[in-house]
């Protein structure tokens, strides 16, 4: 098989690195990328096997819709579903379906066809990925900034009411199930406050408008409309992500504040504020920086529950929905993309770690 060859290649090109310099860094990067290909391939196989494991396929979905929505007779609907399966190769063995899919990706960059949208999966990916990344980055930025800020506040005011309140808030953010938080917000907006900006990204009026009417003529109204629609999602996801950042920041800052070099800085007569901001905070940030890479895929799916509740067309809900109706290539492709972001994230994390902590050397053995 294809994968085996790549894997052997990856193994042969794994050298031990000299400790420093730009060139090894680049090679390290190349090797890691080469190594990630077999990982992705294995993962795609497992993924495909899992999503095909439950009984039922898209033919069943067609059948169900014809019966319940269109009032078709069982026999007619079953016949129609069988024909669909025959025409679209749903009856082929799983290995063949997988082979077709992966072969299409490798040779043509074709991720297959979505049954339900009746268009290439790549179209759906391209349509859903940008808003997903935008939301994820926004949430992540807010969660990091607020979390780190709160963490510094809490650590420098350890055991005061500020610390207690912030810890409690972060604890709640971490603990209350997000779907519930989202449902409660939606309930209040729709049932109590008569808010009209719910569901999807834009009100129907703005959805078709361009963002730029012309040079320097930005469509502010559309942006505002977008914010009115997505703020609950961003708020809920931010509160959830904030807790983690704050916890880690607080703990690490407390650690570093007691470290020798900080004591030294204090002894040198630096003001406490300067000590914290110049010496302690940058060091306490290390683990959080390293964490940035790992958090990538999490970010892409972190808003999943909220997006489902608010009916936003992002990646997360698409995975759950396509899996539910048996639109296999959509599920498989989206999961593959998520897997790839995770691996990329890990590589970034490793690089960041090296950049921040000179004691860890690229690929060095022990």
């Amino acid at each position, binding site marked *: 098989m294809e994968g085996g060859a790549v894997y052997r290649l990856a193994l042969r090109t*794994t050298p031990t690195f000299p400790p420093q310099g730009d060139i090894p860094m680049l090679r390290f990067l190349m090797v890691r990328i080469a190594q*990630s290909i*077999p*990982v*992705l391939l*294995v*993962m795609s196989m*497992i*993924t495909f096997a*899992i*999503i095909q*494991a*439950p*009984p039922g396929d898209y033919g069943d979905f067609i059948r169900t819709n014809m019966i319940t929505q269109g009032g078709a007779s069982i026999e007619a609907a079953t016949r129609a579903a069988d024909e669909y399966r025959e025409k679209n190769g749903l009856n082929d063995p799983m290995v063949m379906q997988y082979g077709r899919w992966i072969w299409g990706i490798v040779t043509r960059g074709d991720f297959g066809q979505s049954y339900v949208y009746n268009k290439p999966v790549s179209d759906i990916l391209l349509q859903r990925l940008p808003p997903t990344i935008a939301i994820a980055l926004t949430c992540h930025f807010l969660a990091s900034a607020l979390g780190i800020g709160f963490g510094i506040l809490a650590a420098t005011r350890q055991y005061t009411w500020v610390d207690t309140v912030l810890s409690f808030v972060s*604890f709640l953010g*971490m*603990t*209350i*199930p*997000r779907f*519930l938080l989202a*449902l409660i917000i939606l*309930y209040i907006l729709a*049932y109590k406050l008569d808010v009209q900006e719910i569901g999807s990204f834009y009100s129907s009026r703005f959805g078709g408008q361009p963002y730029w009417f012309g040079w320097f003529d930005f469509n502010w109204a559309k942006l505002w409309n977008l914010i009115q629609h997505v703020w609950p999602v961003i708020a809920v996801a931010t509160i959830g992500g904030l807790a983690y950042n704050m*916890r*880690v920041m607080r*703990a*690490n800052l*407390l*650690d*570093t504040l*007691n*470290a*020798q070099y900080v004591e030294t800085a204090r002894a040198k007569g630096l003001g406490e504020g300067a000590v914290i901001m110049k010496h302690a905070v940058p*060091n306490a940030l*290390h*683990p959080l*920086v*390293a*964490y940035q890479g*790992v958090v990538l895929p999490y970010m892409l*799916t972190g808003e999943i*529950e909220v997006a489902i509740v608010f009916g936003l067309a992002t990646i997360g809900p698409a*995975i*759950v929905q396509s*899996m539910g109706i048996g639109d296999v290539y959509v*599920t498989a492709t989206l*999961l593959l993309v*998520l*897997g790839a972001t*995770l*691996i990329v994230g*890990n590589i970034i994390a490793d690089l960041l*770690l090296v950049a*921040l*902590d000179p*004691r*860890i050397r690229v690929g060095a*053995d*022990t």
Partner: protein
Amino acid sequence: MTTHEGEVADDRTTTISATSQSYAALVWRRFRKSIPGMLGLVLVSMLLIIALFADFFAPMNPNASTASFAPPDHISFFTKDGFTLWPVAYSITESEELDPITYQPLMGPDMENPRPLVLFAKGSPYKMWGLIPMERRFIGLADGSPLHILGTDKLGRDILARGVVGSRISLMIALVSITLITIIGTLAGITSGYLGGKFDLWFQRFVEIILAFPQLPLYLALTTLIPVTAPSYIFLSFVILVIAGLGWAQLSREVRGKTMSMARIDYVRAATALGASDARIITRHILPNVMSHVIVAVTLGIPTIILLKSFLGFLGFAVKPPLISWGLMLQDAGTFSVIGSYPWILSPVGFVLLAVFAFNALGDGLRDAIDPY
């Protein structure tokens, strides 16, 4: 989970072997001073005891049914005769009258009939752990009538009783999986980080596959993969295996990073040069230093697992009735009518909060005790 890879470890490594006191005693002495830690310990112990003797602590049979969607009984220290030292409960009754807008039967406390709350009340008979026949319950009404401290659910079953009984499965799954995760994750992380080289390289690719594993579809597919008529313990073991099987990878990566930076520290190198055995280096130097990290990861992991289960419940994956778990109870919470009209059905969120708080507080206390800086 927390990553502590970059941390400056040098300064605290000396604390361990320098003390003549036993390590455990030292930790305990430090731990006792931490108020949140002790609070956490007490709460965790209480939770475990309640879960263990759930049948006794549940004020009612969790499957007995009365009126659906009944709000909590009115508990008060006041009767018609004035203040009482011992609280009384006014049970909720349903009237024939309907609300003119929602057509719901009007319900309210029956203020005519205060019933004293008693400890060790005689209630409906049950079998402790399915063996010992008993009929006393921790709390109940003196006359043995139903007590709904947190109201009833859609089928008129007592929410508190279900919460207490449901804690069993929820805590059991969380504790067993976190134990497995900790053992596997720590061992794998130290081994990989300490051995390094080819083994590390291969093993980390494997870890990456696990990390990148599509968890969501696996959970969604899981229900259909387990035979429907399989006994419940098989179902539970399956869930635990999957949670643990996917959960150890993250921890192992973190432990590996920690181990790698530790193994390069001068005194460890010195120990190696002096001919100390690998086992000694690992147990004396590396393990104690990764412990604080592991403990934080564990205490954060328990709530993560409990929350993961509530999320899966939202997506439709939970233990099947008649088994009871918090995740299953939370499934009922996801409707607008519950949020708007029957908020007491959201109580399982409170149970989750309590459990998460308890384990977090305990973990923080322990962490500070093990690792005082």
